[in-house]
């Protein structure tokens, strides 16, 4: 079985997000970028499936700016076999919407015929939580979102999902799209020798036009602003004072 893993280049989760003063968006110029943390979990899971003999090949895909090839090299260094970069923008500030991403991924899935697509449940930039579900819809496949456990048995996958208030286990028909949640695994770090090896792994470069997909936005961004600031609080001198303040505020 081939496993396809879409990965997104996003602002590093440790970087403070700065909203541009003119309201045009978040400043991404000269900011550290990394693989979306949920996508790292998806890559790790694909590697574990390969190590368990349940997957033969792992193909990582990234759609965005040319610099996303760094993100793909990270996936290759972790253990993906080859990568496809789809350049869909030359501006780091243009976010390709999940619907357009899903359409490009559909075209790639049609070509590559994977038995499983493993996605992060959401990207930590636009927080849309949509690409996996949209790809599944366009393919007419089953979907299993927010996975914390995946067991593949023949042409079925049993997936445990993190839902409000607990866990739900469902069985889906393969091929399928699974979106992964935090509890599924802890991603490995790429070792230096593997980082060196990853430089020699194949990375195909394509464009959105190659797949005939229009990547113009359906959602026009009117403005982006900072959220309302929290009012400054106070320091208390002792546990007694803290307890008194909390009682006063009706918090305990």
């Amino acid at each position, binding site marked *: 079985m081939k496993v396809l893993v879409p990965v997104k280049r996003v602002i590093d989760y440790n970087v403070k997000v700065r909203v541009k003063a003119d309201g045009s968006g978040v400043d991404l110029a000269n900011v550290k970028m990394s693989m979306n943390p949920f996508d790292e979990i998806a890559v790790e899971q694909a590697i574990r499936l390969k190590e368990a003999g349940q997957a033969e090949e792992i193909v990582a895909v990234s759609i965005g700016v040319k610099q996303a090839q760094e993100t793909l090299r990270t996936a290759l260094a972790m253990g993906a076999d080859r990568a496809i970069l789809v350049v869909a923008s030359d501006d780091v500030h243009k976010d390709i919407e999940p619907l357009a991403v899903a359409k490009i991924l559909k075209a790639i899935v049609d070509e590559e015929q994977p038995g499983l697509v493993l996605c992060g449940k959401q990207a930590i930039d636009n927080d849309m939580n949509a690409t996996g579900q949209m790809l599944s819809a366009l393919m007419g496949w089953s979907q299993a979102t927010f996975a914390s456990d995946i067991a593949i048995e023949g042409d079925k996958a049993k997936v445990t999902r993190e839902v409000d208030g607990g*866990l739900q286990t469902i069985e889906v028909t393969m091929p399928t799209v699974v979106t992964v949640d935090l509890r599924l695994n802890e991603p490995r770090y790429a070792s230096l020798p593997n980082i060196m090896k990853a430089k020699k792994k194949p990375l195909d470069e394509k464009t959105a036009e190659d797949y005939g997909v229009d990547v113009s936005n359906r959602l026009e961004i009117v403005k982006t602003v900072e959220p309302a600031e929290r009012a400054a*609080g106070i320091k208390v001198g002792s546990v007694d004072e803290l307890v008194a303040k909390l009682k006063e505020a009706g918090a305990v």
Partner: protein
Amino acid sequence: MAVLLIAEISDGELSMDATAKAVTAAKALGDVTVLAAGSSAAAAGEAASKIDGVSKVLVAEDPMLGHRLAEATAALIVSLAGDYDHIVAPATTDAKNVMPRVAALLDVMVISDVSGVVDADTFERPIYAGNAVQTVKSNDAKKVITFRTSTFDAAGEGGSASVETISAAENPGLSTWVEDKVAESDRPELTSAGVVVSGGRGVGSEEDFALIEKLADKLGAAVGASRAAVDSGYAPNDWQVGQTGKVVAPDLYVAVGISGAIQHLAGMKDSKIIVAINKDEESPIFQVADYGLVADLFDAVPELIEKL
């Protein structure tokens, strides 16, 4: 304008809070029809008909709609979509599972986690885990939306909408339900808890995390952890609060031994009251805390447990 609102139902029962909050948001868009779908949904539909602002309820009962499996539920919603300009739901995990699928089948973008309605085409939503708020204008013919319920007040009761029974769409037969496991802990669930007590790297070890749990139990709180604590192996990953973990907004958030890294703040800064206990008075966590206590947590937390 006509709005189709997908009611939140679990085990045949209407989740009144989430549904009524979504009704408040939806009312601003037009005439609200509620869809109650499930293996048993009549009682939930009846309950939804009493929410103020609901003009009609559609009840679809079918075993294949049980457990809100995405493929069958999305097929039903798409079969009804022709009559509506907006298709909306409260942003629960069920809706986040189903609504993007609906949107893709209709060839429109989903607008997730909407926190404000500007007009029928324009919406506000948090991005970057709430570190920015974006206003977007949809150019799509139909809008598929999930509403972040914590920002809307629940609509009252007192309505008397008509209730109509409809049939389910064809079963795509792609998935089956196996089991549900409700969280076994006696503690409340992290994302919906009224009080959350979280520990950070300052706690120092997995054994000492018991102190955080003890304070949580005293307050009837859920237990959280910073990513640093999780990465150090002090706490399990599903306790993680932050941009890469869970986003919480309880009435009271107690941060113990947490320095307040950006990625942690992103997950808890919408809490109503924030308490921080940390021995380093320069910690960024104090910049968001309503009440900050500069103290060694191993002295302060046992004392706090005793005095609460």
